[in-house]
């Protein structure tokens, strides 16, 4: 009888913990689309500037019972900006003799690259794997880099990339057309949003949802 009671108490406790664990299971496995359509498409994007951005990705796991664990990595992002020539319309071009007025499409992010090869883990400030060390798991590291990317993307506007890209695009177009015998005046359409290649890609998938 005693044994029976003991077993039932153990069972109750186990059920309690399993319930708690399953809550976290649902949390961990939030649905992610994993189907990426393979496609090859034509485009006409002229990138005139590349910004190399560095960001330190660091995080701390606070563990009241055990020692805290740390993660520290230097990362680099490469951001290319320019214009989409497919958005250049005939009305944007005025030709009078050898004088050309060009009203170019707004500057946008042509490519955002946050390559894994540029992530340098700083061993000195990162907790090494070990029993009870609490080192960051592979999944946790990936999660930190994802947060790093989101943070960089959210702050691109502050980098003054539009002005530099406009200047460089103007120079490049002038170089091309002046060599062809034209005198060129270049202006840009303005856009409140700094659109990016990512928006265009995301649109395809958002539309499918």
């Amino acid at each position: 009888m005693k044994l029976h009671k003991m077993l039932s108490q153990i069972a109750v406790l186990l059920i309690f913990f399993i319930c708690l664990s399953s809550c976290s299971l649902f949390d961990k496995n939030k649905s992610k689309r994993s189907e990426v359509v393979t496609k090859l498409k034509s485009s006409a994007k002229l990138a005139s500037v590349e910004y190399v951005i560095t960001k330190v990705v660091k995080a701390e796991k606070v563990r009241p019972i055990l020692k805290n664990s740390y993660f520290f990595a230097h990362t680099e992002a490469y951001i290319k900006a320019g214009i989409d020539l497919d958005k250049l319309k005939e009305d944007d071009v005025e030709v009078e003799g050898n004088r050309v007025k060009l009203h170019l499409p707004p500057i946008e992010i042509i490519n955002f690259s946050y390559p894994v090869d540029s992530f340098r883990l700083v061993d000195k400030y990162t907790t090494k794997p070990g029993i009870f060390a609490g080192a960051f798991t592979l999944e946790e590291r990936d999660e930190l880099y994802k947060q790093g990317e989101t943070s960089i993307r959210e702050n691109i506007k502050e980098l003054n990339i539009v002005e530099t890209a406009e200047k460089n695009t103007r120079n490049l177009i002038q170089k091309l057309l002046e060599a062809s015998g034209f005198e060129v005046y270049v202006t840009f359409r303005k856009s409140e949003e700094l659109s990016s290649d990512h928006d265009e890609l995301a649109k395809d998938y958002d539309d499918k949802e």
Partner: protein
Amino acid sequence: MLLFRKLWFIIVLVAVLGIGFVVAGEMNWLPLPKISNLFGKSEVKIADTPLEVKEVKDIGELICAEFYGEVYADLNDAYRAVFEEYKQHIETYGDTLGIYRDSMFTDFPLLKNMIDKRKDIEELNKEFQKKSEEFKAISNEYLTKKAVYDSIRTVYDSVMVAYKKGQEEYIENKRNFNIAIDELRDKERDFSRQIRKLKRRNKEDEVEQMQESKANIEDNIKQYIDLLNENLDRWQATQKSTNEMKEVYKRYEREYNRIKNEYDRKKDGFNNFKEDYEEEIEERTSMDKKLVYIGRGWVKAGFDLTNFEPDDIEVNKSSDTTNLILHVNRPKILVTDINPWFIKTKKTEIEGYEIFMKKGSDRKFTNAEQVKVKSVCKDKLREEAVRKGILNNAETSGEETLIQFFQLFGIENITIKYKEDNNTKLAKQDG
């Protein structure tokens, strides 16, 4: 007393379970609940660090083709790549790695084992290469014979169709000619009867007329008999050539079947050998841990105009037209990217890198191994893009873009010349 004992038991039980869960949490054996924040298991946020502009580069890249795709790579791929890099270094520069070798072995702990087993594996590889070459030769011979047999078979099939058609024609002609001859013979007999009657009545003029008509009928019969004979000759000739063809075909068929049987036998042998070889390699290079990543990203290709000089454009103006020649380098891969996020919007979240399979404790994986698997994903994505024709697409679409761009300014004839091979593409604007 009983209550005290019970309470004591519950305290011990809870303590044991608690410790168990701490250990399980630490070892990542269980996906622990939020309560385990006590052990640092809750979602960790990165600290708010500033962005620093390291460099601003002036570039001029015209992206003309984009490839989006998904690839897989595992730890075996990563080690193969590292091993190849190591081997190439040794072959090119000799054993000059020095202390770098130790750091390589720390980053890739299984590399040393791979190098130690290199000789064994290379022996196996050599044997496999030899067998592959032998099988390739047999395969080529089989394919050549098959091509010849297929072409003979095509000819044989067409000859057989012609034979059948010829047979039908022969039968049809024979039937029609015989009907015509029978009809003419009836008429001839009829004329003979009438001539005899007219002769009995001494109607000489009419007899003469009738005899002329009868002679015509006899000529017709003769013509039909000639046609009948020609028909037969033709049919016999067809039969003869068909029989010859049949003999040739049978000879080739026998030869083909012999080669095919030999090929099938050797193919089975080679496949068994290949299976054994792969098992052997797998056994010798097997790892006690597994890591497979899915990588989703893009490859972009186009013209690099960064070093574009005014001399790269030639303009020739005549009285009514302007000709422009643009000298550019051939399109190349400009970027290959798999970012942490493939897409992240409010509606859609698709990871750039996603762990598909992980076997072994996290402690067993080094950062370098993780990075290398991801890096191999990128290499595979680039290879896939090239295989899917991104460079050709970039060339076609890039030429179109450049031509359309200059046409906006009224330039009529635009020629694109590639610097390295002087191949030219000419576009003319109508009117």
